């Protein structure tokens, strides 16, 4: 699995520097969680890696795959909103990528998409439209669509934050097992989510924002059990680190 290295990332909104000269590397085949308060530029950093324009600001920086090949076509993207197309069936939403790349609705894509829906427990909803699904089901379809891309690099922007606690817990588990071994960047503002899923946790905070490591997560198998005592301890520590970061930002 290729990793990703970002050099000299910079972001500015209306002349205000959000971050500047930031370096981040995503080790191949591992989940990296990016934590930080709102408005610190987490999503923008993810968008920069995805090759998407900064919404309303200016972003710059070099993004490379560690194997030297181009990143184009090797990234899958999952956002906080499910972004399902309401006029397409669940099945066609899952295989949207194939149609985007001009492949049409062939039997091959159907087979792959149906298999993924089956894994998500949604095979019987394949012909339904997204409008008839619950929020949790919709996000599962979005996860299936992300997996359909079969990309080595997966960028997830707060993918579970709009879900209720139980559904979030289940989806985290699914994502952890189905995306294990890929190079994943998980942007989140939930320390426990980062602790459950990530091999590495980074914190982006301050103004201008700096990146720092939050130390290694507890040595438990992923997805880590949030009810272990060391997880609670680490979560408390993370909350502290995040809090001091934002205060620092407010003071300057």
């Amino acid at each position: 699995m290729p990793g990703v290295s970002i050099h000299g990332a910079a972001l500015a909104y209306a002349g205000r520097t959000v971050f500047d000269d930031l370096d981040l590397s995503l080790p191949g085949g591992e989940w990296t969680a990016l934590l930080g308060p709102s408005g610190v530029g987490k999503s923008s950093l993810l968008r920069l890696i995805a090759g998407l324009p900064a919404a309303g600001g200016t972003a710059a920086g070099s993004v490379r795959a560690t194997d030297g090949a181009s990143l184009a076509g090797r990234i899958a993207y999952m956002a906080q909103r499910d972004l399902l197309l309401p006029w397409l069936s669940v099945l066609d939403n899952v295989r949207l990528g194939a149609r985007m790349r001009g492949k049409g609705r062939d039997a091959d894509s159907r087979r792959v998409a149906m298999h993924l829906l089956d894994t998500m427990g949604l095979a019987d909803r394949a012909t339904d439209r997204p409008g008839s699904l619950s929020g949790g089901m919709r996000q599962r379809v979005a996860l299936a669509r992300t997996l359909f891309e079969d990309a080595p690099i997966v960028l997830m922007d707060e993918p579970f934050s709009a879900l209720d606690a139980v559904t979030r817990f289940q989806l985290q588990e699914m994502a952890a097992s189905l995306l294990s071994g890929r190079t994943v960047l998980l942007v989140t503002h939930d320390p426990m989510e980062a602790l459950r899923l990530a091999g590495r946790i980074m914190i982006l905070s301050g103004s201008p924002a700096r990146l720092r490591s939050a130390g290694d997560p507890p040595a438990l198998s992923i997805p880590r059990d949030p009810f272990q005592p060391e997880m609670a301890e680490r979560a408390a520590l993370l909350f502290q680190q995040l809090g001091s970061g934002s205060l620092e930002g407010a003071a300057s």
Partner: protein
Amino acid sequence: MKVLRPILTFLGLVVLWKVLVSLTGVPDFILPGPERVATVLIDRAGVILPHAVTTGMEIVIGMAVGTVFGGTSALVLTVSAPARRWVLPVLVVSQALPVFALAPLLVLWLGYGLVSKVAMAVLIIYFPVTAAFYDGLRRVDPGWLDLARVMGGSTRSVLRVIRVPAAMPAFGSGLRVAAAVAPIGAVVGEWVGSAGGLGYLMLHANGRMQTDLMFASLFVLALMALTLYALVDLIARRLAYWQPENGFA
């Protein structure tokens, strides 16, 4: 009740009309009573019908041609930046020109027949269709476009799979406006110069003080316009089949 309500409204208006005529005692050539109009409608159906067919053809062909032109223009404006820079301002400015003022010219250039009226209808519906569809094509959820971009979607596939379907509700609104104004275009065209159609018949009847025939023609025209609107509304709903309708209860 849903079916009954418009019928009751219609009957109520007819009764009000009759009462007004009886109370004021206005002569028939100013305001004929409803029963008089109904009689003319039946007695002279043979005269009215061919004219109604003419007007109907003008409206339907005008709708079809205007929709194709408007739809194509919106697509071109969406994909081509030069078209947006050069054509869009012209399109907007052209709307400052009242289409009615062009009617005599159209008749002069295209003759008294069907073509000048179709041209009128096309001119009058072109802008609402183009503007509504173009707006819909542009105002697509940026999140969908982000997703498509990361997936490696080409401009063409984004247009086909995302933008066009997403614009269908807006396109439908444009079609509804078009259906409401297309009859105006056709009838104004007929007033300016023609040898047939309901507008012509009305003008003709007016000149001979046959006010009852005018009312009968007007009734048929209204019926046709309503049918067209209902039909287009149905099509517009079909085009946006996936859209929930959340009006006020």
